[in-house]
């Protein structure tokens, strides 16, 4: 079975690299985007199973990306996990209202993030059980 593909959207190259290493070690394929504009074009091109999205981005911040994803029929089903340095008290509610599946403040605990990724990824249909 093919690995799930995750699109990492972050303008910090080191963080992108770290997430890539972490996710690949957990058997996910990764692609990346460095700003709001390329996030959308990459989402179209790569059709990822899940997007990890930073909020503070050049060329269209995270909220713009969330809105574009939500209003695009081909992309609106892709779950988004927001991973940001911003304060949850001012951002979390707005992020969730904008359609994200989860909110994490940086630095996010690896185990927790992986657990939520696992649970958020669209379920692959399991083969029907054999009749006994």
């Amino acid at each position, binding site marked *: 079975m093919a690995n799930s593909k995750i699109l990492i959207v972050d303008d910090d190259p080191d*963080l992108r690299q*770290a997430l890539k290493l972490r996710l690949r070690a957990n058997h996910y394929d990764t692609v990346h985007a460095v700003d709001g504009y390329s996030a959308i074009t990459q989402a179209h091109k790569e059709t990822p199973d899940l997007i990890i999205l930073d909020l503070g981005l050049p060329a269209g911040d995270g909220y713009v990306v969330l809105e574009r994803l939500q209003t695009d029929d081909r992309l609106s089903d892709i*779950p988004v996990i927001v991973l940001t*340095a911003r*304060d949850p008290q001012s951002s979390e509610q707005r992020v969730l209202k904008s359609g994200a599946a*989860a909110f994490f403040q*940086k*630095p*996010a605990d*690896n185990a927790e993030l992986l657990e939520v990724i696992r649970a958020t990824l669209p379920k692959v249909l399991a083969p029907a059980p054999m009749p006994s």
Partner: protein
Amino acid sequence: MTASSTHVLLIEDNPGDADLVRLRLVESKSPIAVSCVDRLSDGLASLTSRPPSVVLLDLNLPDCQGAETFRRVLENSPDVPIVILSGHDDEALAVKALNLGVQDYLVKGSITSNALDRAMRYAIERQALLRSLEMSRKQQLEFKNQFLSHVSHELRTPLTCIYQFVTILLDGLAGQVTADQRDHLETILKSVNQLGAMVRDLLEASRAEAGKVRLEPHCVVIGDLVKLAVTMMKSVADEKQVGLEVGIDSRIPFVHGDPDRILEVLINLIDNGIKFTPSGGAVTVQACLAATDPDFVYISVADTGCGIDPKAKALIFERMYQDPNSIDNSRKGLGLGLYIAKELVTLHSGRMWVASELGNGSTFSFTLPLYSLAKQLFPVITYQNSLRDGLVLLKVELRPLSKPIRGNWKETCQHSLEILQRCVYLDKDLVLPPMTTHGPEQTFFVVASTDMDRVSVMMTRIREQIEKVVDVKANCELQLSAEPVTLPGTGSAEPLAQQVQDVADRVTEMARLAPKTEHNSGNGKMAPRRS
């Protein structure tokens, strides 16, 4: 009236005194417009409709006398300068008024035109100065908060980077590490976590100071929260070989507070206790009621540590205070923990204090308000001096279907609560604050003055209304149930207040079983129902 003229509001009921002051004002060189009223109520109306440059205030008016007079003017218009016109008999009061925000006073009978002119001019100038000071203080505070918020945001990005790559190395994702290297990496990780906690505290403290912490009050079972905090701190205590003990009075009713914030306070105090207690010692968390203070629960965290110097005791809740003799001197932190804890307790209208003796440990105590169910129930469940006939406890549970939850769960719960409040009769039903649960499940209770037959109508209505707004089927399981509130024995001979108290106790007992049964509901099994 030109822009530069001074508008004087004279509040004086004695026509002779009023004329005299008016005369002195006319003699004044600067252009002055005077309005004169003889009652405080008219004065307050005039202050609101046409704010004057200065108020000349007599303290003995037909509708208000003494200190109350200037107190009400100050309350109505805190920014308007006041000069009191006192008699010889109330000069002492006028002096006192200066400490409470009044600018000046003049003793009637010895008022010269010059003195009046000068008093008014200085009063106006001082008041303007005070106002601009207050404004720049607010601006500075706002600037400081923005700065801290910005700094903590910017610090998080490099912090995340360090955390990510250290854990990548530690987890062997970049190749094998030796035992020594592992040790060093773990030291880095520990420091990163400390730094992360400091960044969090920095923002939290500035938010507390600016009054920007919002509480979301719930009905909290304090015993459960204490146990949760102790469970969370167990590994820290074990590592240092410090015992963690709990003593909770089981009769404590619901606490009215924000469970997340209370947990923060508890964790903070327990963490501190462990930090200052040597191996082999113990930290004990207790919650109890005090007969002398029936509206509050008393919670204490006692350690067997080094104790606090009496000189330090007064400073310990201050921001940035750090004990110079701390045994943990190498890692001091920012010294914001106790400050934040105290602010959070104060926000709950509780108190926090410490009792300690050098070498004999410390006990940090705080109070939290109890949810006074009986007080809330009284107007709802009584009618014409007796208890209403039927009382039913209605339970509404919302449980998310998927984990993690898709969409905005917090808002779903808030929405449901609002709907619930609209679905009941406010004069005979009471919606309790949401129950604290330790999972995403949310439980609401309604004490309804109705019988079991009619409650089903109510339940249908609530279900319909919630389903209209919340996409229940896609998101969550909505469960409604009802149970009659039966009292042990016939209590109708007792005084009404006692009967209401009995109902409150019974409701508390019935409701507090609910959050506890939800601990193990994660695997989809239904909690056993009480018969």
